[in-house]
């Protein structure tokens, strides 16, 4: 048996687009097989076919050399195929253990038998080094632990073909290290892994072989050890990609954003500590200032207070010289502030609205799109078409596509287009490239730099160290709600920056104990 799973000549079409066009994927037992491609290249579609969520129009799937028909996730599970989705499928109000057994509970006389399940979960957790607290509520645990719960779910069901859909997109650098270690451990125990990603570093680090897709077509399969990153990137994008951002020297202008002793109370219940504590900084015209830090150190609360989503607990926020600490979100939106939010599904888009309706989310009430309370739909869709053209947003039905039916990368492009085209003085971009492929990242980075060159102020919040180092004029390191360092990228190494972010190094007391 040379291949454990084979997908041969898979074709899957949707209205307006062929998502998979004669794609072949062959995975050897015990290998980590990377599936590389841009957003919209058809990776997720292919995996959804394998997982039974879609039926292929053409092509066959073979498991251990035998042709199989996978009509749904239940069948996929029965065949030993498990999947960790990019957006986790967990019940927030259940404990870790309850989530793991959900759907395959052991029942005796109508009563749940959790003790056996607990023993099995603990054994698996031990065997694969997947640290979890079985009794913690999912809503209380970190994203990293949620992911380990998802992996345990697959192992609990005795799956041996594991699909990881962009597992690192939501993780911190440390957690990424950990998950890669876990993946290596899993293959050592005989599991086979399909690893969907567009991060070449990660493929280099863990994968054995790599299948590349581009625009729904099979481009090739390569041996990772013998192929360099540039080649793979070229295969994926179809052209050479320039990942180094060019930041021309330029004078900065007057400050657009001035933050003075800002504090924000923690939003969680029972927390008494400030999520943002006595933070002061400014962002000037013509510069990109980056807030760097590990997720959960107050970035979200800081941005929400700046944009008005939550009230400031103390201090002062000035936008273009005007005190906006107490003003409404709409006031800030119409006075020069634009915001690319961290969570594009929660804040950035109304998924049930069309792309066109989403494009005017903050401007539907302006005379351009409305008269006497009536929306000018032809103007709205014309404008949306213009942005689709200018920002290369791809979707099945143009500006009438429901936002829900767009790929993540194109959703993000739509948000970026909307925010940038409003011509703001200050652009707050929170993890704008999270989960995107190199082509889209390059594109979004270019837009941010354009804003800088046009004399706008850009406040970037990022967890990606490469992005922080590449793109910023100044770096502000946030740790436990306080700004602990202000650095210039050329004066600091990535390793040092990592130490600052982890709180083990501050400007005041260098070499403090690690926390």
């Amino acid at each position: 048996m040379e291949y454990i799973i084979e997908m041969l000549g898979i074709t899957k079409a949707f209205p307006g687009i062929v998502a998979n066009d004669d794609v072949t994927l062959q995975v050897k037992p015990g290998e980590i097989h990377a599936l590389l491609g841009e957003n919209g290249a058809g990776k997720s579609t292919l995996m959804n076919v394998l997982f039974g969520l879609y039926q292929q129009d053409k092509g066959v799937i073979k498991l251990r050399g035998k042709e199989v028909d996978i009509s749904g996730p239940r069948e996929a599970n029965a065949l030993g195929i498990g999947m960790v989705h990019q957006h986790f499928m967990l019940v927030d109000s259940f404990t870790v253990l309850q989530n793991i057994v959900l759907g395959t509970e052991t029942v005796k006389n109508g009563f749940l038998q959790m003790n056996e399940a607990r023993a099995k979960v603990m054994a698996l957790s031990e065997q694969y080094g997947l640290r979890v607290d079985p009794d913690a509520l999912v809503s209380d645990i970190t994203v990293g632990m949620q992911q380990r719960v998802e992996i345990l779910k697959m192992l609990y069901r005795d799956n041996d073909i594991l699909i990881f859909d962009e597992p690192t997109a939501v993780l911190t650098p440390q957690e990424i290290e950990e998950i890669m270690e876990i993946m290596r451990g899993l293959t050592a125990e005989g599991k086979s892994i399909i690893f969907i990603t567009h991060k070449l570093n990660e493929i280099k680090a863990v994968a054995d072989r790599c299948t590349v897709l581009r625009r729904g077509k099979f481009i090739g399969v390569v041996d990772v050890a013998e192929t360099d990153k540039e080649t793979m990137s070229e295969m994926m994008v179809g052209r050479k990609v320039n990942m180094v951002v060019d930041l021309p020297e330029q004078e900065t202008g007057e400050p657009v954003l001035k933050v003075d002793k800002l504090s924000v109370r923690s939003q969680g219940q029972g927390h008494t500590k400030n999520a943002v504590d006595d933070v002061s900084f400014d962002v000037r015209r013509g510069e990109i200032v980056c807030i760097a830090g590990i997720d959960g150190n107050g970035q979200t609360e800081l941005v929400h207070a700046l944009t008005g989503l939550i009230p400031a607990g103390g201090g002062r926020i000035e936008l273009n010289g005007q005190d906006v600490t107490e003003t409404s979100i709409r006031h800030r939106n119409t006075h020069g502030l634009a915001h690319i939010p961290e969570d594009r599904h929660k804040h950035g888009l109304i998924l049930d609205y069309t792309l066109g309706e989403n494009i005017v989310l903050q401007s539907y009430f302006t005379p351009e799109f409305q008269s006497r309370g009536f929306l000018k739909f032809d103007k709205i869709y014309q404008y949306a078409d213009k942005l689709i053209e200018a920002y290369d947003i791809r979707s099945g039905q143009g500006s009438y596509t429901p936002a829900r039916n767009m790929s993540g990368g194109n959703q993000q492009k739509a948000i970026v287009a909307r925010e940038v085209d409003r011509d703001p003085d200050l652009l707050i971009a929170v993890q704008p490239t999270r989960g995107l492929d190199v082509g889209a990242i390059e594109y979004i980075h270019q837009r941010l730099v354009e804003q800088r060159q046009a004399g706008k102020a850009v406040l970037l919040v990022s967890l990606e160290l490469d992005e922080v180092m590449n793109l910023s004029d100044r770096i502000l390191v946030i740790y436990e709600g306080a700004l602990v360092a202000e650095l210039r990228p050329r004066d600091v190494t990535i390793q040092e920056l990592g130490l600052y972010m982890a709180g083990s190094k501050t400007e005041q007391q260098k070499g403090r104990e690690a926390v």
Partner: protein
Amino acid sequence: MSEGKQGRKLRLNYDFVPSLVAIVVGLAFGLIILLISNPAQAGGGFWTILTGAFRDLRSFGRVLYFATPIILTGLSVGFAFKTGLFNIGASGQFIVGAYAAVIVGITCPWLGSAHWIVALLAAFIAGGLWALIPGLLKAFANVHEVIASIMMNYIGMYLVNYLVLQTAYDSLRNQSMPVAASAIIPKMGLDTLFPRSHANGGFFIAVLAVIITYIILNKTTFGYELRAVGFNRHASKYAGINEKHGIVLSMVIAGALAGLGGGLLYLAGTGKYIKVVDILAAEGFTGIPVALLGLSNPIGILFAGLFIGYITVGGDIMQLYDFAPEIIDIIVAVIIYFSAFALIFKGFIQRRRNKLGGGKIQ
């Protein structure tokens, strides 16, 4: 762009399919009950339900009469659904609106030819005020609107009973006094079209309400905001929409529509009075299946209301076939009940279509 427009048209054409499926399933279950309860007469009885309302003009006029109030309560529930709220309080808003209409109808005959219009306006406003309370509680105290509006149903019912006793009581019949002739909604020609049927101009007002609601929801910035809040409160807040305002206004408009429904029924001039009994107004609850069957779309709600009026009239005529009135009520209820599953069929049809293509493009 042309491709996009086409896609949109296609979607519109599919929209009513789940409702039709729901109706067919409901009718099938109705037939099963008929067969169990009275096999000999089942065929004739079922045929009567299906076609009874078309027997004569009078029957069809009665469809319009029955449909009028439930179109309004359906709009009320559907409007709230569209903005992400579940208005289960249409019953209370309906009866409060009815009382407001009746009391204006009794006490203000000096208004002359504007009398019935003012009385309907009173119903509209009273219903809106009644829903204001759950709206405020939801927006500012995060009290779930279902709990608050159920409470308001009972408060509304008992308050109206008390007020009728105090202000407009006909002690002989244990009901409200008749309204002045000037407060009765003009027939607007429907009495000549559908003789002896109770059909009256209220139906045209209901259609007007449907059209206005449709325009507000789909064409105005106000509707854009309300739907945005309904779909995604967080993104609406991010966009600078005052989502608390949206919630309150949405409840008030929903309540006003239900209140207007109460006014339309009790000013119809058909010998309908507010009874002083401890029973919640059924029209308010019927609004829920009407909204569900109409998939919360105002135009859909118009047809759903007509359909349920149609089935009700057909059921009445079925008494000719030896069916106990209770059985008829059960059958009509079953059909309505299954009609409310339109949403489930919608989900089912969408999943089928996703599977066969037309799903997310990755």
